[in-house]
């Protein structure tokens, strides 16, 4: 099993979620994060002075899936979350050794 971590632009969340549901993703966990990368933060004004906010608001999606659909998930996210402008975000694939469903104690793929 793999964990697919996607850093995306916040306003893309609904679209990504809907597209992923269509390829069979059953669950995911989302958190609000701040990103730093090639996309620079922007200048804001506060009581007459400018300052730079280095971090940009992003969402992190954590999706644990079986190996077989990893590629499909990646393709889907790439298609839906991309705008072509700097700052679209990244996808990281990491290994997951075990999944357990708390409610039932089930383990492995059936627990996803």
């Amino acid at each position, binding site marked *: 099993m793999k964990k697919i971590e996607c850093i995306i632009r916040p*306003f893309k969340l609904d679209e990504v979620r809907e597209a992923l549901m269509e390829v069979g993703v059953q669950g995911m966990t989302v958190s609000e994060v*701040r990103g730093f990368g090639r996309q620079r933060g*922007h*200048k*804001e*004004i*506060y009581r007459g002075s*400018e300052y730079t*906010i280095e*971090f940009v608001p992003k969402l992190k999606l954590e999706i644990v899936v079986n190996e077989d659909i990893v590629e499909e998930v990646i393709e889907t996210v790439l298609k839906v979350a991309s705008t072509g402008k700097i700052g679209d975000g990244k996808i990281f694939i990491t290994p997951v050794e075990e999944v357990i469903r708390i409610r039932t104690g089930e383990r492995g793929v059936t627990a996803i």
Partner: protein
Amino acid sequence: MFHFSGIWVRSLVLGVVLMVVVMFIIFPTVSYALDGTINEDYAAGKKGEEVDEAQYVADTIWVLFTAFLVFFMQAGFAMVEAGFTRAKNAVNILMKNLMDFSMGSVAYWAVGFAIMFGNGNGFMGLRGWFVNANTHVFNSLNWTSVPTLAAWMFQLVFAATAATIVSGTMAERTKFNCYLIYSVVITALIYPIVGHWIWGGGWLASLGMLDFAGSTVVHGTGGWLGLAGAIMLGPRLGKYGDDDKPRPIPGHNLPLAALGVFILWLGWFGFNPGSTMAADAPAIAHVAVTTNLAAAVGAIGAMLTTWALLKKPDVGMALNGALAGLVAITAPCAFVSPIGAVIIGALAGVLVVLAVFFFEKIHVDDPVGAISVHGVCGAFGTILLGLFHTEKGIFYALDKVAALKFLGVQILGVVSVFAWCVVTGLILFSILKATLMLRVSEEEEIEGLDFGEHGASAYPDFQVTAMR
């Protein structure tokens, strides 16, 4: 410690010098022309001996006190609108509420008051620019004993209310520079002309139309101009899905919105009882009571309606219901009995819920429900006065023909103001659309107007410093 670039010093010095020069040359002339003799107004009350001195003082205290309460409604509107919109547009809403009052103060001083109450024709006033309190060109205000400047103060806060209502319906997508322009035009021109018709001795006043504290003059004007604006702007991004069904775009802070409604309710105790513009004891007590009862049942009515339709009592609608009751009772408050007020308020509470659904259906996106609250319930209250007026209303009058005629005039007034506001509104907003775009870019709308228009954030510490 004092390594200090000279630019500030220089610009300061320059500014002062410039100012002094300008002052010495231009100022005295202009100033004397405008208000050189104002101080004489101090010597004697505006109406001289005719008026009882104690009553004159009491009237002035009352009018100023209520004017200050109405001023505070600016805070109420700011909180309601900020609460009912998204965090990313909160600074923009606050700035709009601050600036429409600021710009409006100047515009209504320079132009608006003259057009509204200055001597003129049936359509508009034509004298009294810059409110020179010593010229006697405000005949339409002769019925009140208070100094002209007190009357101006009271009328200003009404004008500002009309303007600020519009900011609600056009929230979350209007360019700030367009907002400034149209709110000046409203306070200087569009609203004063309506005001002149009904309160300034204009043609509707001649026909006998009654609008005690402005259900139509103030709230109708604000609401219908907001309607024109919302139509010209189109709905916010994401308001309608592919299925064309309206999707709620929840605001960000209901406690602020509730605070705003309480402030507005308080302000209405200035708005309605103050519109006597005199400390007429039984009248102001009566108006306070009808105002309060209508607000109360308005809230109850809207709550029950949502409870019936949605199975849960909805706070947003209950808050709007209180405002609906207040708007509806604004025209009739001095002329109807408490029981009349209860009926008018209750119906307004139900009506506002239906109206909100109606405008959502027809793709008019009004983020805070201002068209329904101020436009629809304003019209509703003005017309219902034709039924509930305890002397002239159909339910009470002995001469039913006269009563029907009175009702007709009320309806005519509502329709005329509606037409005037929608037409001038559409023209105004079309011009702004053609020249300045009116609406922010899609990208800016997504990112929020706070950043796009003001380079700001309403809760900046939660973003940056909270991480330090």
